C-alpha cells in the first residue's frame, strides 16, 4: 500500500499529550540495540524457544521473581523484551546467571512463556564471550572427562564401602565423547576464559 495515498490528517491529534516521560526506556530504543535477528531466530528454533512470542510484556514475571525482589536491576520482563527486539547484548549480561531457574515466573506467567528456558538459551549464547561462571565451566569439563560433576576420591569410595553401599563403576566417558563430538564442546571449553574469575567448584 502506498502511504502517500492515505489520508493521514485524521490521525493527527494536536491535543495529544504523552502522560509519562519515556526517557527511562533508552535501554531499548533502536539506537542502543546491537540488533541481531540471527540471535532471536536461533532462540525461536530451540526447544520451547517459540513460547517467547506469546509474551505480551505484562511484567508479572518481574513481580513474581525472588531475585528481582532483592536486585532491582534483575528484570525478567526486560530480558524477554530484549530477545523479542533481537538485542543480543543480553547474552553478555552477567545478570542472566543470577536466574535461579526456580520457575516461579513461569508458574505465574499468564501465557506460559518458558522464561527460565529462554534465559538458559541466552546463557548458551554467552559462552563464547566468557559469560559463564568458572564453576559452571569446571563442572562441564568434569562431566566430559569423568562423566561426573565431581572428582570421585579414594576416601569417598571407602566410605561407600564401609556403609555397605554397592559400587557404581565408572561412567563410559568415551561413549559420551563420541556422542557429543559434533557439538565441539570439549574444544570450546579449552579456550573459554570466564569473565567471572573465581576458584572453581565448591
Amino acid at each position, binding site marked *: 500500500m502506498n502511504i502517500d495515498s492515505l489520508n493521514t490528517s485524521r490521525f493527527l491529534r494536536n491535543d495529544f499529550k504523552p*502522560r*509519562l516521560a*519515556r526517557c*527511562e*526506556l533508552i*535501554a531499548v530504543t533502536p539506537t542502543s540495540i546491537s540488533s541481531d535477528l540471527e540471535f532471536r531466530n536461533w532462540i525461536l528454533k530451540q526447544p520451547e524457544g517459540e513460547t517467547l512470542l506469546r509474551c*505480551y*510484556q*505484562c*511484567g*508479572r*514475571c*518481574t*513481580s*513474581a521473581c525472588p531475585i*528481582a*525482589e532483592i536486585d*532491582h536491576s534483575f*528484570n525478567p*520482563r*526486560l530480558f524477554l523484551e530484549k530477545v523479542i527486539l533481537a538485542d543480543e547484548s543480553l547474552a553478555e549480561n552477567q545478570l542472566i546467571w543470577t536466574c535461579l531457574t526456580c520457575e516461579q515466573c513461569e*508458574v*505465574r506467567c*499468564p*501465557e*506460559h512463556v518458558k522464561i527460565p528456558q529462554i534465559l538458559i538459551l541466552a546463557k548458551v549464547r554467552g559462552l563464547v564471550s566468557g559469560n559463564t561462571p568458572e564453576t559452571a565451566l569446571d563442572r562441564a569439563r568434569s562431566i566430559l572427562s569423568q562423566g561426573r560433576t565431581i572428582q570421585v576420591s579414594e576416601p569417598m569410595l571407602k566410605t561407600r564401602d564401609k556403609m555397605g553401599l554397592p559400587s557404581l563403576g565408572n561412567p563410559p566417558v568415551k561413549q559420551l565423547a563420541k556422542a557429543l563430538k559434533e557439538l565441539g564442546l570439549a574444544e570450546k571449553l579449552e579456550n573459554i576464559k570466564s569473565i567471572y574469575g573465581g576458584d572453581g567448584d565448591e
Partner: protein
Amino acid sequence: MGDTVVVVGAGLAGIQVSHQLADLGLKVHLVEKEATVGGLSAHLGKVFPTDDCALCLDACEELFSGHHRRCQYRSLLGNQKKLNLHTLTEIKSIKQDGGRFSVSLKTTPRYVMLDRCVVCLECINVCDVEVPDEMNLGRVMRKAIYRSIPQGVPLAPVIDMNSCTKCTKCVDVCKVGAIDLEQRSKTRTIKADAVVLATGVEERSPSILPGYAYGLCKDVLTQRELARLLDSTGATNGKVLTASGKQVESVTMILCAGSRDLNAIDYCSQACCTYSLKHAIMLREQGVGVTICYMDLRVPLHSHSFLERARESDVTFVRGKPDHVIVHEGSPVTIVEDTEALKRLEIESDLVVLASPLVPHAAEKEVFNSFLGDYGFAARHDAPKGIYACGTATGPTDIPASVAEANAVALEVYMALKGGA
C-alpha cells in the same frame, strides 16, 4: 405455531427480552432463581454509560439515551398480563417434545404470599433474628425476614428459613395473612414454543487464585464487593471503610486478576475495565487515592468518558500485571512492575480490589449443558431450533450490548413464532 416463551434469568437482558416479547403479544414466563430480579446489575450500585442507579433498574429502550430511566417497581414487570414472573424458581429440565418444549420448574417457598402482601414491612420490624447481610459483605445485619434490595421487584420480603426460628411474630403482626411458614416447594411444567437463556454471569471467586491474598486479608475485595461498599444505600451509605472500620484513604486495583491468564480464565471479561474506572472515579470523589494496575485498558467507545474522567481526576495508572499481594501489618501490599518506568513497586494501600473474571451462571447447572459452548457460555449459533440466548449468557459484555442483544433475540423469536414465513 404456539406463542409461549420461557425466558431463563431476570437480569437486564432477560427483563428486556421479556418486555419486548410481551409487547409483541407473546406469552412470556420469566424465570428467576433469586427472590428479586435484576441479576448482577442489582449489585453494582451505578451502571455505565449513564451512571444510573442500578439497584432496581429496569431494562428499557431509553436506558442509554441519557435522559430517561425506568425503575422496576414502576414498570409493568410485575403486572403485565402477558408476562408471568416466577421468582425463587429454577429450571429442573427442558425436554424437546415434538416442535415444542416441556420446561419443568421448581419454585422454592418465599413464605410470603405475593398476592396478599401489601409491603407494609411490619413483619421485618417485629423479627428478632439478626444475621449478617450477605448483600453488604456481612458488614451489617439483616433480619430473618428481609428484602435484599429495598426496591427490588417483587417488593414483598422473603424468609430465610435457615435462620428463622418460627417464633411466628411476623405471622401474628401481618394484618393481611400473607405469611405462611409452612409453604412448600412447587413444581410445574410449562409447554413452551421457545426458550431464551438469559442466565447471565457472576464474578468468579478469586479464592482459588494463588497470589492475591483474597480470603487471607479482608481488605482484598472484588469489584462487585467494592460496588456494595460504594452503594449509597449500603452498609455505610456509600462511605468506603476497611473491614476494621477505618476510613479508606488509598485503593489499589488489579485488573485482569485471573482473566486473560492460561492458569485461570483465558478470555477477556470486557466489562471490568470500565466498571473499575467507574469505581475509581467514585472513590476519587470521596478523596480516596486510587492506583490502577493494568496490562491494557479495554474500554468501549461508548464508555470512553470514564477513562477520560479517571485521568482528569488523578487516578494513578501503572502498566503492569501484579504477581501477588502480601499482607503487611494487616494491610495489603501489591507487588507489581511498573513496566513503563522499569521499576518494581510495592504499593501499600488500605484496600486492594480485584477485577475478577465474569463466568457463566448456566455452566453450574447440568440442565443447560447441552446448550452451552466454550467456557460454558451459551452458543449464539448452532443452538437447537427453538433455543435462544442473549445477554451475558452468550459471553461477558456490558449492559448496553446485553440489552441490544436482547432486542435482537426478541425479534428473532417473534419472527420464528409469528413471522408467518
